[in-house]
C-alpha cells in the first residue's frame, strides 16, 4: 500500500479527525499530531492581547515547500506511514487551530513524535506564510528569523 501524504493550504476549518483518517492505513497503529492555534493572550516576552491574526501565503511556493517538508520527513524516518501537513490562511481568531502536522506509523516508537516536531519546525523555517497580528493597540507583522539557503 502506498503511504498517503496530505498537503493542504486552506481557508477552511481544520478537521483533525478526518485528516487523521486520511493518513491511517491498515498497518497504522500510532499517530503524533501537532497543532498550533491563535493565542488570545500572550504572557511571555512582549505580553499582549490578540484580536485576530491575518495569514497570507505565497501559495504555489508554500505548497511546494510543504511537500518538501513531507519528503524530508520520509527521508529521515522511513518508518513513517502517513503524513498530513495543513496550514490554514485568512483571518483566524483566538482558539482556532491554524496548522496541523500529523505523522502515523505502525508503533509509537517509530519516530512519530520526532517527525511531527521536525515538521512544524521546518514549516516555520521554509514555508512562505506570514501572519499579521491585530490587537487592541494596533497591528503588527510577525517576522520570523530563519534565512533558508539557496535551493533549500
Amino acid at each position, binding site marked *: 500500500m502506498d503511504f498517503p501524504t496530505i498537503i493542504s493550504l486552506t481557508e477552511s476549518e481544520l478537521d483533525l479527525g478526518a485528516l487523521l483518517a486520511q493518513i491511517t492505513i491498515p498497518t497504522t497503529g500510532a499517530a503524533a499530531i501537532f497543532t*498550533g492555534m491563535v493565542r488570545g493572550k500572550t504572557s511571555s516576552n512582549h505580553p499582549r492581547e490578540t484580536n485576530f491574526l491575518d*495569514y*497570507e*501565503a*505565497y501559495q*504555489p*511556493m*508554500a505548497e*511546494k515547500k510543504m511537500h518538501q517538508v513531507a519528503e524530508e520527513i520520509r527521508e529521515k524516518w522511513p518508518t513513517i506511514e502517513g503524513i498530513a501537513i495543513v*496550514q490554514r490562511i485568512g483571518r483566524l481568531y483566538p482558539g482556532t487551530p*491554524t*496548522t496541523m502536522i500529523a505523522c502515523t506509523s505502525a508503533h509509537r516508537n517509530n519516530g512519530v513524535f520526532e517527525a511531527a516536531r521536525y515538521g*512544524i519546525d521546518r*514549516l*516555520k*523555517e*521554509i*514555508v*512562505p*506564510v*506570514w*501572519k*499579521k497580528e491585530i490587537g487592541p493597540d494596533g497591528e503588527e*507583522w*510577525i*517576522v*520570523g*528569523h*530563519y*534565512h*533558508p*539557503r*539557496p*535551493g*533549500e
Partner: protein
Amino acid sequence: MLKVKVMFFATLRDYVGSKAIEMEISSGTTIQALTDLLVVKYPRLEKVKDSMIAAINREYAADDQIIPEDAEIALFPPVSGG
C-alpha cells in the same frame, strides 16, 4: 532586456504598496542588483533590504544568482507561518 515579474509579501508588500510588478531588467542582473534597483524605486525597502529573502521561480535564491528570462521573483521577510 528581460521581462520579469516581482511579487512582494507581508511587510514588503506594505512598503511597495503593490502585490506584484512587471519589470524589464538587463540580461545578467542578479538578485542583489535587482534589490538595489528596487530600493531606489521604493526607498522604504531600504530598512528591510538586509533581512529580505528572495525566491526565483518558487525556489530560494542566492544574492548573486542571475535572473532568467520570464522569471517569477518573490521578495519577502523571514516566514512566520504555523
